[in-house]
């Protein structure tokens, strides 16, 4: 899969208060549904977060390892995600294939995902199956390597290469993301490549890489496990102690690579030929880290630009002029850095350059005149509603607990998170538009083969 425009489950993290849905004057964080939790850390460093919810006989287990493609080195891009796949190939007490067979036999579903910043593994299931999921997670955390071998690596390497084909190489515009990242970040920055990595680097990964990566990053002191749903805390604590307690603490986790400060020194124009019928233009600016003081205002800015039918760009380009087939705007913020992006596909008979001129006109209007109260309210209320939806499932709650714990140091951050959005003013949105969208940008035009003349070559004003 592609790197999410925003880190997926946490996208637009906005705590919701139903009280806030009343238009007018929301109070900070008021009414955010509480996620009462208990947390403790085993002597080996594994952090445990528990949230009881007995409304349905379901439970979710969500293990976060604090490693992602942001910890990779050039020459081994895509390795964190390839490793994620290998984690499902069995461990010392789990024969190849049994991981999934045993879980399915108990009615459980499972998956994993990798971002720039973390890798998660999760099961959601009827509550009686909880000890099985915990035992399986413990076996692969503590006992992966004794049965690790070359065939496991080679098999999942082929699967991941097909994942890349299905998500990148065989998809129109599929190579746009990695092209932009390589231009936006300097080559030594680990965000300069996409999570899926390159075919050449996937081919280069060795069994020694697998063993080294596991020993370095897959230690209890680099992980947290959140459990949400229908369980008895005493039972869970007993299982966790028994299954995870004997796993030895790993060595100190190496610090994240030191990243240079990112600047786009001047407007940069790129072109990519692809098997597409219509060109598409991508404008990308350097953004901010997750939870930066301007992060929430940039989220609101993205919504005001292209979040609904009344948004500035959608209404003008798609609805009124009908010059564009689609437009999107996104603010992606992660642990080391972020970016802000606007993407437009012109309809047949219209050009990328024309699209970019219209985008620039709308940005200029917004930076000059600001936004009105109704635009701000639509954005806030939509974000609030999305937050409630994320908290509707036990897995959603478990993943939110881990997310906040990792990014801001406490699982119980929903109210403060909501307050970030409550605090955004129309003036903030205008200010961040001025501050970030007037910087130099990277402009990529994806064009049909042989149509490089359609490339945008200047920032039209």
């Amino acid at each position, binding site marked *: 899969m592609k790197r999410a425009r925003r880190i997926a489950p946490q996208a637009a993290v906005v705590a919701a208060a139903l009280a806030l849905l009343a238009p007018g004057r929301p109070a900070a964080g008021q009414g955010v549904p509480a996620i009462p939790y208990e947390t403790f850390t085993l002597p080996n460093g594994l952090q445990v977060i528990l949230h009881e919810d007995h409304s349905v006989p379901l439970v979710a287990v969500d293990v976060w390892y604090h490693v992602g493609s942001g910890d990779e080195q050039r020459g081994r891009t895509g390795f964190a995600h390839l490793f*994620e796949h290998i984690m499902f190939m069995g461990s010392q007490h789990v024969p190849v294939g049994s991981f999934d067979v045993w879980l399915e036999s108990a009615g459980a579903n499972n998956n994993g995902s990798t971002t720039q910043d973390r890798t998660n593994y999760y099961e959601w299931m009827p509550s009686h199956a909880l000890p099985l999921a915990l035992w399986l997670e413990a076996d692969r955390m503590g006992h992966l390597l004794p049965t690790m071998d070359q065939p496991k690596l080679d098999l999942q390497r082929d699967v991941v290469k097909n994942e890349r084909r299905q998500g990148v190489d065989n998809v129109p515009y599929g190579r746009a993301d990695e092209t932009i990242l390589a231009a936006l970040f300097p080559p030594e920055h680990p965000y300069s490549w996409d999570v899926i990595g390159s075919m050449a680097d996937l081919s280069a990964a060795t069994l020694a890489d697998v063993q080294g990566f596991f020993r370095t990053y897959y230690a209890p002191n680099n992980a947290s496990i959140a459990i949400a749903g229908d369980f008895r805390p005493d039972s869970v604590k007993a299982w966790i102690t028994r299954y995870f307690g004997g796993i030895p603490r790993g060595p100190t986790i190496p610090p994240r690579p030191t990243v240079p400060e990112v600047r786009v020194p001047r407007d940069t124009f790129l072109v990519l030929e692809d098997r597409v019928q219509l060109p598409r233009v991508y404008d990308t600016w350097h953004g901010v880290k997750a939870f930066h003081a301007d992060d929430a205002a940039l989220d609101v800015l993205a919504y005001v630009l292209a979040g609904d039918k009344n948004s500035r760009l959608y209404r003008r380009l798609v609805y009124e002029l009908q010059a564009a087939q689609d437009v999107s705007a996104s603010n992606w913020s992660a642990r080391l850095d972020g970016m802000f992006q606007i993407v437009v596909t012109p309809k047949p008979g219209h050009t990328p350059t024309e699209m970019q001129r219209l985008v620039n006109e709308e940005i200029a209007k917004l930076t000059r005149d600001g936004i009105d109260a109704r635009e701000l309210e639509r954005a806030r209320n939509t974000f609030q509603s999305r937050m409630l939806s994320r908290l*509707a499932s036990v897995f959603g709650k478990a993943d939110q607990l881990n997310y906040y714990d990792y990014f801001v140091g406490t699982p119980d951050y929903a109210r403060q998170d909501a307050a970030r959005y409550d605090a955004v003013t129309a003036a903030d949105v205008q200010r961040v538009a001025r501050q970030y969208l007037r910087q130099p940008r990277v402009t990529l035009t994806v064009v049909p083969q042989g149509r490089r003349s359609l490339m945008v070559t200047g920032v039209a004003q």
Partner: protein
Amino acid sequence: MSARVLLPALVALAAAAGCAHSPQAAPPPDASGARTATPTTSTGRDSAAARDGAATRDTVAAPSLRRAAVADTVGFPTRPPELPEPKPLTVPPVVERTLPNGLRLLVVEHHELPVADLVLVVRTGAEADPADRTGLATLTASLFDEGAGGRDALAIADQEAYLGVDLSTGSGWDLSSVSLHAPTARLDSALALFADVALRPTFPAKELERLRAERLTQLVQLRDRGPAIADRVFPAAVFGDEHPYGRPLTGTEATTRAITGADVRGFYERYYRPNNAVLIVVGDVQPDDVARRVGALFGDWERRDVPAVTAAAAPSAGPTRIILVDKPGAAQSSVRIGGIGVARSTRDYFPLLVMNTVLGGSFTSRLNQNLRETHGYTYGAGSSFSMRRMPGPFTARGEIVAAKTDSALIEFMRELRAIRDTVPQDELQKTKRYLQLQLPGDFETTGDIANQLVPIALYDLPLDYYDHYSAGIAAVTQADVQRVARQYIDPSHLAIVVVGDRASVEPTLRATGIGELVRQPLPKE
């Protein structure tokens, strides 16, 4: 973000297709006739909406790999824990009311969060499209929020975002729907908007022209995506031109150009009638209160006789053949294999559900195990029976690395033959347990529950249907599975569609000898 497997698509799509709990790994692509809800999701960049149920016959056991516990595992059990019996799921009761105009109301209370989900199910979909107006049902549904009551398109969108509600409309083959997700604190305003959109659409001419132009551009863009091409060519190969299921849900260039405002209004007037509809309400509500509010909003909706939808008989399947569509340079080949399946009313529902789950309906199913976890030919393979009012397609599918297209096809065929043999008892038991124990998760949120009620509304299933669901699966025997496999999967009469790089895949596909190979041009849209 990269993930281990693509998860079956959103439950919302399942509702649109009316296929919740039908034995498929994932909703078929035609389920996405629902209009994209927001501009930001309409870029089409996320075209890899492929799905795989992926799964496996467990072929690999490696007891020799087990080792004695070492020092750091003292106390760690070397065998998986014994699990207690699962808790019985108490399916929430459904309260039923019927308005004097015939509108049936199904209400389920769910008080965990202060939200509600509503789905107005209209029991007619694209099956009713005239042959020269394909795409009419989906276009009609997509116009509801382009003007309704006293509001124009922008005012509707403004109200939706201002209230923080999700409003969506769409059509599948045998249903159309209007859905709402709203906080109960704003339910009055949200219901008023919902009722306007469902009962008082104005179908403005300028919005029809706008959506028509968007659709024509989408048809141009369709040529970019091999999987989307395969999903158009395959049903046509199975059902032909005369049967509605062989036609594209969202129309062709010619039919998209031909549809008039009178067609749209006529479709709406004919089929959107209270006596042809069911309203599902799930959430933090009281049934009496819901009935009162719905009565006030929908009570004046005029009853009228709704014409029955008829269809030409589906053609009988010819000998297995391979239809190859050229997609030069494609890194993967999009493979679709199958034929005509069954209607939702089949008496073989549970045996088929079990059989298909063994074959291609979960991660450990045989197709996924073979093609992904044994051979690495794909990111996921699976199969599904699209059960509709009339028999829909049976489809096995995968996106296959181009160089292994022939090898993968051989493995697909191997599994389609093998499923006709007796399924081992342990594999059968694993599958039945898996299906039975999925049920609690299908009733987790208000949206989940509303989706589970759609088949009840659409196919006249009893209100206590889910109370007997587990028993229905428990009753399935080895002999049942074998019987339905032999009855519904005939390896000698399959339509096989491959969209890929013809120059590199055609010679090896021919060499497989699986069936006559026919070249087909890209569909003219």
